[in-house]
């Protein structure tokens, strides 16, 4: 598949036929990403959803080149960064940052919050060249604490003195220190209790509005993704099966997998009618994905063609793309 992203104008970041394969012994190959193409416009929030092993985290990491993709291209703001040497990638790294799920693992427990958040400001030169002064760094730290809703006193304390939600605020402050344009967040609220999760989701939304940020938001929780995303990409076994406006994809899913995923979410509402029958089976191994459509082994509407002919992503009239021979919406 060599389709070019059709979106215009120039996206902030785009992936083209991205592949990531791992050798897993005995000559076997695991395709974590099997030809993924997408683009993210400035100011947009792209939600990446799917179950474990679908490749959503790998995709997030490939976009920032935290791992080197095995094939395909990543273009950030017009620059192909796929094979850019580290020396030339470095200035671009300031513009793209990541927030991880485990708020504690991401912070050195022996250093104060002020040092942790200041670190990117100390290792990267200031925009005009030269190094930032102590006073500049202190002023920026104060600004960042305000941005993420932490008291200034937090700077003098250690990570373990904070709750999970507060630690995620620290991680966000650190990611924002260099005023990036793109933030890839990998399950940033998955480890938090719901009442705290809501605070952090709100913070992400506020920061996007205030700073004009662009997010790639990786999460398994469809409701969280719907809340924050403008567009959603649904992944299954290393490929995108549906991509489009968040409300279209999540309210009128076109791919049977998207529909099954939505139906499986337990909602905090007691329903009077019965629950839909759950999807059968487990996600197949990405080492030996099924032939044809990779979802056909679990698909409630699979036909003969699906077992042999792998569908490619194609556009529907409403602008979304779906990789299904028999989508659930009118074509």
């Amino acid at each position, binding site marked *: 598949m060599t389709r070019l992203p059709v979106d215009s104008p120039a996206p902030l970041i785009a992936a083209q036929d991205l592949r990531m394969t791992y050798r897993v012994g005995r000559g076997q190959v695991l395709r974590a990403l099997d030809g993924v193409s997408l683009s993210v416009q400035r100011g947009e929030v792209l939600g990446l959803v799917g179950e474990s092993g679908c490749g959503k985290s790998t995709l997030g990491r490939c976009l920032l080149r935290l791992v080197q993709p095995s094939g395909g291209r990543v273009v950030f703001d017009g620059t192909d960064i796929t094979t850019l040497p580290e020396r030339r990638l470095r200035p671009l790294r300031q513009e793209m940052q990541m927030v991880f799920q485990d708020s504690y693992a991401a912070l050195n427990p022996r250093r104060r919050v002020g040092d942790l958040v200041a670190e990117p400001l100390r290792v990267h030169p200031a925009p005009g060249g030269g190094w930032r002064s102590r006073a500049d760094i202190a002023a920026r730290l104060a600004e960042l604490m305000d941005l993420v809703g932490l008291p200034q006193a937090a700077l003098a304390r250690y990570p373990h003195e904070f709750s999970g939600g507060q630690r995620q605020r620290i991680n966000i402050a650190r990611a924002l220190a260099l005023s990036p344009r793109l933030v890839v967040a990998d399950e940033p609220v998955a480890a938090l209790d719901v009442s705290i999760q*809501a605070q952090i989701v709100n913070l992400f939304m506020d920061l996007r509005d205030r700073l004009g940020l662009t997010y790639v938001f990786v999460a398994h929780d469809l409701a969280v993704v719907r*809340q924050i995303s403008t567009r959603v990409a649904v992944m299954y076994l290393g490929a995108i099966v549906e991509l489009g406006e968040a409300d279209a994809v999540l309210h009128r899913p076109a791919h049977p997998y998207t529909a099954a995923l939505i139906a499986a979410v337990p909602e905090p509402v*007691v329903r009077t009618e019965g629950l839909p029958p759950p999807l059968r089976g487990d996600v197949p191994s990405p080492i030996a994905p099924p032939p044809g459509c990779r979802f056909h082994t679990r698909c409630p509407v699979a036909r003969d063609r699906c077992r042999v002919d792998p569908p490619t992503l194609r556009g529907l009239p409403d602008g979304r793309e779906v990789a299904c021979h028999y989508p659930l919406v009118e074509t």
Partner: protein
Amino acid sequence: MLLVVRDLTVALPIGGRLVPIVESVSFTLGAREILGIVGESGSGKSMTSLAIMGLIDVPGARVSGSVRFRGRELVGLAPRAYRALRGREIAMIFQDPMTAFTPVYTVGRQIDEQIRVHQKISRADARSRTVRLLGDMGVPDPERVAGRYPHQLSGGLRQRAMIAMALSCNPALLIADEPTTALDVTVQAQILDLLRGLRREYGSSVLLITHDMGVVAETCDRTLVLYSGLVAERGPTGALFAQPGHPYTAALLDSIPPLHGPRPARLPSIPGSPPVPAERPAGCPFAPRCAYAHEACAVRPALVASGVQDIACVLPAEGRPLPPRFVAEMSA
């Protein structure tokens, strides 16, 4: 009643004094009933289930109150008597099936053994029961799966195998502590479907411990909401979700982003975080975060009946209960 828990209190020694982690928790569980115990981290939900199972082995811990199972008092039961009960009459499943199985034997052998510990039957008979159980749990090709090691199975299959092992002696009570938290949603839906079917197929009652209000809504007949080691509210699941009586329950439900209907511009969130047990306020533990807090909340509120629910809040008695919850219509 199969299980009657009265004023269960679990106190652990922290900083040289006994701090109640779970305080005066009371509930009942009938035959073939599924009761959900829901709460956020640190609410005491797992501690409650461990106390019922007699599995709290922290030195200096004190469990008081009463847990009556089939009329028999379990608090203070000798370890030996507890062991005879566990596995046979009360079984437990956990979030991580890897902790329930040893990695060195096949899944089938471990379930066989569990059966043979409690019943005098031959190996062959035990194996055929194991295979039947695995099949009942929706395991495809159960004979082959019985011959596999835990690490060779997917998360969903391991969870099914663990439930099969838990049910192997037909326990009257199954305690499931976050049984689906580590699973993907499509597999979670299968396991919840299985748990709902247990009362029909096996006549089991289930105590489901979870942090997920969605899981509770779809699975439990009645619900108990814990906050900071205390019961905030309990009642039939339908009523509790339609009209939560405790401001904590209402706020918790509000903070979950909706999957249907209009997207809120901001999610209602609960300010601050729950108190740690040692710093629990003397009055209502939720008062510091509660939008309705007032002078009356300085005294610990008792659990009082309000309609079909019991609510540990002064609002109903003051004649100003919370309004019914607004839920957007689900699209077909």
